């Protein structure tokens, strides 16, 4: 009875974990494959963010000082190489783009990216950054297969180059994207760069993720020992119950 129960419980837990996670439905995306434990990747991602993204996008919940601490960067590193807005070391990352100007230029205020990966998922952001293509019909000249009619012009075009869409037979749906004009990076380098950027944004959406994994191992080891001792104590007391 008990054995059957345990196996049923384990099985249902496995099914729950294995079943589709609760992302909003959409096409299945390739895995971003980023790794929060790869500090070099996080540092490269931070550099990309502060060179290409912070012009328009803020990280209002993220402080420069926290980035320095978590990514093992010195105050000087951060203030010279990442902070281009004159903010103080303990200030949050706020873009200098005035909301009015942004709305005029792009039709909407660029969203804050502090929680972008929590909201959309690392895979989505990775796919988004790899899916821009030239579209003469779009008012900004660019379009995106993951987020059609995206308001953002492609800021990484120098790196990736220009992709153009190959239309399907019906002439409406994009079948695939082709690199028509190479950028300064090879496709493999560009994918790694966007993986780094996604990795950084993943970290930004939950800085505690770096700590909790570290503590988790010790907490579970302690609990395992505690449970084992509790079990021995229980067994000792129960040996005279018949």
């Amino acid at each position, binding site marked *: 009875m008990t054995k059957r129960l345990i196996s049923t419980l384990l099985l249902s837990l496995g099914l729950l974990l294995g079943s589709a996670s609760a992302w909003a*439905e959409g096409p299945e995306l390739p895995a971003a494959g980023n790794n929060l434990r790869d500090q070099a990747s996080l540092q490269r991602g931070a550099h990309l963010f502060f060179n290409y993204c912070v012009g328009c996008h803020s990280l209002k*919940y993220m402080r420069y000082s926290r980035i320095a601490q978590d990514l093992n960067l010195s105050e000087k590193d951060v203030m010279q190489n990442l902070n281009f807005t004159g903010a103080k070391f303990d200030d949050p990352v706020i873009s200098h783009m005035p909301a009015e100007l942004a709305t005029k230029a792009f039709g909407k205020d660029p969203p804050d990216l502090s929680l972008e990966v929590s909201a959309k998922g690392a895979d989505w952001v990775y796919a988004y950054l790899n899916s821009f293509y030239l579209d003469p019909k779009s008012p900004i000249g660019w379009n995106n297969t993951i987020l059609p009619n995206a308001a953002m012009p492609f800021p990484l075009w120098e790196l990736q180059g220009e992709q153009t869409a190959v239309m399907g037979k019906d002439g409406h749906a994009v079948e695939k994207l082709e690199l028509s004009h190479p950028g300064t990076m090879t496709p493999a380098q560009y994918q790694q760069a966007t993986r780094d950027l996604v990795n950084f944004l993943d970290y930004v959406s939950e800085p505690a993720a770096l700590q909790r994994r570290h503590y988790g191992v010790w907490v*579970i080891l302690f609990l395992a020992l505690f449970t084992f001792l509790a*079990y021995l104590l229980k067994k000792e*007391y129960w040996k005279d119950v018949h």
Partner: protein
Amino acid sequence: MANAFVRWFDERAPGMAPMYRKHMTEYYAPKNFNLWYYFGSLAILVLVNQIVTGIFLTMNYDPSAAGAFDSVQYIMRDVEWGWLIRYMHTTGASLFFVVVFLHMFRGIMYGSFKKPRELVWVLGMLIFLVLMAEAFMGYVLPWGNMSFWGAKVIVSLFGTIPVIGGHLVEWIMGDFLPADSTLNRFFALHVIALPLVLLLLVVLHLAALHEVGSNNPDGVDVKHGPKGNRWDALKPADGIPFHPYYTLKDLVGVGVFLIVAAFIIFFAPTFGGWFLEHDNSIAANNLLTPAQIKPVWYFTAFYAIVRMVPSFAGTAVWGVIAMFGSIAVLFALPWIDVGPVKSIRYRGTGYKVGLTVFVIAFLSLMLIGTDLTDVLFPKLFGADIDLTTWDNVFGRIMTLAYFGFFVFLWLYTHLGWEKTKPVPERVTTHD
């Protein structure tokens, strides 16, 4: 010194020591509790966790529409150990329902709600009802987009009530949409009013249980069995003192439970978007409707019932009645299932089949409520099926099965159709 203190205390509060004995060292519980009997003490553990972590969250949370979302991120990033406290609270909320669902199922399966434990069951159901209100209001507090839209949809359910519905919705929210006033009052109810009610009900639930004594997997009342055990010649022979026997056994259960909880808290706090939903990482926005509005997983079975009942006679109130009915019918269980045999071990085949159908119906309604059927059905039956029709047909069958279980049980036991097995005189097993 210690003895002097005990004497001093005893003279001034002579009732304390007897009360401790009555509920702990001289509360004789049947010795054959199995795995299903861990979930009651675990529910208390989670309740304590929710209260303690809740107090610390309250210190840094800002219950205003303008500040709530930011203050949650402040807790996650700037408050020392804030992330751990919040994850303990959010994981605790989901595990509370896991534990309570299993605890309730145990009660149904072993007939723990039957005479003389009807009051224990009804008090337990009241706890469940208050817990649902507590969880719903807590879910609104982070003021994410799913908090907002979830609040809007759930409160709108009251809007289906004819004549007064519209006013009732406004009265509950204090505005035309979930807003600052809604958040303020939900916060007050979540941190003060409902926890007080919950604690009172838990005390009453335990007090009522200790009056009549615990049931067990054999459904044999040890109080009516032979007397005399190692500790007391007048107490049940098959009973053992709750402390230290079950306190120690429950401690092992606590250890295992905490390992599972710690795994979630430290390695998968969002649990793939099931415990903390992705859409709640976007601040509340009444102009941005999430792609799917659905409650957290533990409400989905009940929410599916609302969706599955069609509106007729010009009102959608029937679905809401059915949803409340699905909980109300559980209150009445002791008077629906009047079969004399308590435990599933000695009950008729009809009961076993019925209970299996009930479990399948509940889990299926959960699948519909979580929209997982929209992923499953195309995989199973082809991509070109009409999902709405499939959902409705499947969901309505399962809604009927949910209520059908209780109708069947009433007929089965009131009309004497059940063929039970002989119940043993004394409890059969223990570990």
